[in-house]
């Protein structure tokens, strides 16, 4: 029981990290970024490259990796996405092309075999008689800290309120003189950094291989739709719901169904309450 509680929390926390960034960039810039999973993969691979190949100690390597992914996100938005922003489909396709290209780059540079990213804590920790992998607890705490800081940043700073203003009404925000392009870059950087950080902290206990971007991408998608496109609290709530349902299904029923759970949740949401748990209602 406690095991399920802890593992569910870890799974949910990783989902939330992926989903919050994904929903943020949609809410602010209306960009459905299909390269979001790529950020996650790049985070993990940079951590691998820095620690294993360049022998950088783990903590600086982790920070550098996250910074690198953030930079990648900003450059991608600036160079490839922004010129196409007037067409939603074009943005979707170009981010997809980025994702596919980067997957091939990882194949070519690192090969098909899985890679090992070192953990912050490499031994089990016992909580009330339940032995839990230490890295998972580290991941859980980092996730909570990062999401909470993001929350504070958005609600307590000037830049944060500009982000909120744009996500509520982009046009009005422009009239108010908020430099939306700079905000887009910033939000893309944040979104990429969060996903990259998720990659760095989850890599030691999950997969590191070139195709690792797909599952997180689909999960982020699912969580964001269930939570309501553009809503950060919605994403967090949905991450908890989906994270725990997957964990419960895996532990108590049949692990084969875990992949289907989030997808079914998505379809049910779209059919029954398309605006998601906490999204704005959708008009005809």
């Amino acid at each position, binding site marked *: 029981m406690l095991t399920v509680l802890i593992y569910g929390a870890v799974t949910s926390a990783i989902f939330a990290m992926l989903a919050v960034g994904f929903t943020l960039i949609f809410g602010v810039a209306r960009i459905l970024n299909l390269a979001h999973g790529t950020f996650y993969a790049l985070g993990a691979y940079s951590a691998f490259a820095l620690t294993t190949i360049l022998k950088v100690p783990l903590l600086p390597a982790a920070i550098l990796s996250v910074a690198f992914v953030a930079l990648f996100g900003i450059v991608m938005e600036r160079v490839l996405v922004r010129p*196409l922003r007037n067409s939603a489909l*074009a943005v979707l396709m170009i981010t997809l092309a980025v994702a596919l290209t980067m997957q091939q780059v990882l194949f070519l540079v690192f090969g098909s075999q899985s890679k090992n990213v070192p953990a912050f804590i490499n031994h089990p920790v016992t909580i009330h008689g339940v032995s839990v992998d230490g890295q998972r607890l580290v991941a859980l705490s980092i996730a909570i800290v990062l999401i909470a800081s993001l929350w504070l940043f958005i609600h307590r700073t000037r830049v944060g309120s500009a982000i909120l203003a744009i996500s509520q009404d982009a046009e009005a925000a422009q009239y108010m003189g908020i430099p939306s392009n700079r905000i887009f870059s910033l939000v893309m950087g944040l979104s990429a950094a969060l996903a990259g950080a998720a990659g760095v902290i989850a890599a030691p206990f999950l997969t590191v291989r070139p195709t690792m971007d797909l599952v997180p991408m689909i999960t982020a998608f699912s969580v964001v739709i269930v939570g309501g496109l553009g809503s950060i609290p919605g994403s967090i709530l949905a991450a908890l719901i989906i994270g725990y349902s997957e964990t419960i299904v895996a532990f108590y029923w049949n692990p084969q169904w875990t992949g289907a759970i989030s997808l079914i949740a998505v*379809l049910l949401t779209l059919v029954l309450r398309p605006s998601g748990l906490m999204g704005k209602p959708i008009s005809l």
Partner: protein
Amino acid sequence: MRKRDWLGAGALVALLAALPLFLENRYFTGVFTVCAIDGIWAASWDFFSGLSGRENFGHALFIGGGAYAAAFMNGKFGFNPWWSIPVGIVVPAALSLVIGFPTLRLRGPYFALAMLAAAAIMQQFAVIFWQYTGGTEGIYGMSRLIDSSLGNYYFVLATLVATVAVLKAIAASRWGRILRAIKGDEGACEAAGINTTFYKIASLALSAGFAGLGGVLFAHYEQAVTPDDLDVFLSISVIIMVYVGGIGSIWGAACGGILLNLLLELLRGLGEYRLWVFYIILMLVLFFMRGGLVAPFWQRLQGSRA
């Protein structure tokens, strides 16, 4: 259609029909068969999504639906392969109704995402219920529609021509005009007294039926069906084909399908760099040719001559 368009289309079809005669081997015939099937998939996507503006990110649901229907009919139950065609059209069309009714009323990306999820769920089911579907290895040991690969190619090519002709004709009729009006403003279209739900769902069903037909042809060409036929990647590839061909023209989409598959085969010589180079090319096309490649090119050609 102007006279030049007829001539261009005729020349293209004649070229496609003649190529395997000059390059007589099973490889090229096979490549062109798959090209033509890709053309059917792209044209069927474009008919619904290109005209109505509701992007379908789960076209593989219909393609795979048709393919699996064929696999069950012929591979599992041993029916004559020609029975796959009607069943492989009806099953995806029926699926499209089930998905279309609840989700097509939604604006924005929701329909796209619902289709994406539906196809992914179906793929999961194809793996989970392996007792019936053969799991990841799928169903194999199907027979061909036509034994001679050249004969089969001509049948597929004829189907492609018929698909494009039928869909293009509908698109040019008032039906197509209504779809384009829905793309423009669905609410206003309702206010003009048009039952937009009916047109959207009927068009999706038609699109699904043709996609399923393509799926049937593919399944019988490969003589096997796997969950790859339901994959997100396939759905996305179809959209890429349409995008490259030029959205909304149908024939351009079909050309995009042919072109992309041809390109992928041409790049075989690059070995493991193949996909990487392919995606880079794709990115350049997406970025620099925003209206697509084929249809706009044809129009420009017309412009320069006129």
